[in-house]
């Protein structure tokens, strides 16, 4: 036990002197890294704008209030597009994610050394690139519009859905699978009656969870031209129509809150 001798009294300490030295060095290194980072940021900042920030924020606030309520008539179609991007994107993603998940789960994959790493690579690479970047790329390839948004959301969601799904597949109860196998079922019958019923609740939960995330993501896809309400946001920002911007932000906030509520309700009903 780490004990220090202070004036003949033994005092308990949390760490030995070597451990505490190590901790201090670690802290020192951490602080040095942070200081360097801060210096870099501060060098790239125009501080005049920062000191001016409260005035500008107040200025934007006065311009943005009250929101231009009559503009809501023009937001119906963009909201519908946003909903479609999220729903169709999630649906496409799930269709693609299911085979990837089965190939990635160590208990269902055909080959642990060849196919599993490929599936895991697909999962990591689709997950690490943001949907806005996918959208940028797809717009360059297939042109701007809702379609590019749907595909961007779909590709981005594969990794997330497949990762959660393959973890659910790896956690299934083997005894049920064995029981089905013992009846002489074929490989596909084992899949349909032994594995699928066990992962179906997880699958439904993942689908709704990702749909909720995709509603959030599809609200901003329009900023790069991929359709949805973000398109209205960026065009209003470009002409500095702050009352419209504030209304759009309110609508987005409302959409996010509603989708979160729906997803919580549905997941509560399934699980």
């Amino acid at each position, binding site marked *: 036990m780490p004990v220090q001798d202070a004036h003949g009294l033994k005092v308990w300490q949390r760490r030995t002197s070597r451990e505490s030295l190590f901790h201090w060095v670690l802290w020192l290194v951490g602080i040095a890294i942070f200081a360097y980072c801060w210096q870099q940021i*501060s060098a790239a900042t125009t501080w005049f704008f920062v000191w001016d920030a409260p005035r500008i924020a107040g200025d934007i606030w006065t311009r943005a209030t009250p929101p231009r309520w009559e503009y809501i008539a023009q937001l119906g179609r963009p909201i519908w597009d946003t*909903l479609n991007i999220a729903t169709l994107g999630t649906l496409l993603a799930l269709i693609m994610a299911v085979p990837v998940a089965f190939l990635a789960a160590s208990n269902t994959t055909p080959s642990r050394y060849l196919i599993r790493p490929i599936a895991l690579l697909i999962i990591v690479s689709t997950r690490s690139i943001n949907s806005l*970047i996918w959208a940028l790329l797809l717009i360059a390839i297939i*042109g701007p519009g809702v379609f590019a948004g749907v595909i961007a959301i779909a590709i981005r969601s594969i990794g997330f859905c497949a990762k959660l799904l393959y973890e659910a597949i790896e956690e299934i109860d083997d005894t049920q699978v064995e029981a089905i196998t013992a009846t002489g079922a074929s490989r596909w019958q084992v899949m349909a009656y032994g594995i699928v019923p066990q992962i179906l609740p997880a699958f439904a939960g993942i689908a709704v969870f990702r749909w909720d995330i995709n509603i959030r993501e599809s609200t901003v896809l329009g900023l790069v031209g991929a359709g949805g309400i973000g398109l209205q946001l960026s065009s209003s920002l470009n002409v500095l129509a702050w009352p419209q911007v504030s209304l759009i932000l309110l609508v987005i906030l409302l959409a*996010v809150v509603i989708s979160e509520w729906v997803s919580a309700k549905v997941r509560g009903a399934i699980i």
Partner: protein
Amino acid sequence: MSDTTFDVNARIGQPWKKPHFIQRRWLRWTLLAGFIAYLIASYMTIEVNWSRVYEGLERGKNFVLAFTSPDFTSRSSDIYEGMVESIVMTVASSVVGIAISIPIALGAARNVAPLPVYLICRGIIAVSRALQEIIVAILLVAIFGFGPLAGFLTLSFATIGFLSKLLAEDIESMDKVQAEAIKASGARWAQWINYGVQPQVMPRLIGLSIYRLDINFRESAILGLVGAGGIGATLNTAFDRYEYDTAAAILLIIIVIVMALEYMSGVIRARVQ
């Protein structure tokens, strides 16, 4: 299953059928019909310009091919500067965000904080979670001007909502007995937190912090699209100029860094737990 009583003789010789996921027949069919109707309606409103898509396939092929020959050199200084800026923003915002979210997490845990503090902290968390990173970035760029400072503030703000919420849940589900033992020894509030609460939530805090570092890096890659600094600006220009080999190089670097972070977080989490 609902039909617990059935005639065995009538069932003999009939193949077994899998029970449906939704038991009520009318509900099943209404949901299915509604969903199909929605799919048709949404499919009708999406205009796909197939000739444009067909033209684009060539560019798509070029992009995929670009991954086999990524160009790290011709824009190397832009890539390097953007990457350093992204990493700098990630590190600084994670540190500041985590430092701010610890007191907020303590305030948002009902077993540590009194009701008024709890409500305020939960409010902060709700606001931070509801606003999306890119929207916050747009507003902060408008207020603070272009550059990494806006990105740094955006990511710090987003970190607060994420980390405080999960940490507060962990504090709420901690083992009360250990904390009580510390309290019984006559500890002050700060000592109680330091010796009773902190050791219990520390592994979770470290795990969440590394996870958030990972998320912040990924987000920092897109903040450049709205002028908030980082690699996103370089990536955007590469796409605009159809320089797919440079874009492929940037995407590969992002994927490698994310994979490295994921591996590192796995190692560290295994060590602390």
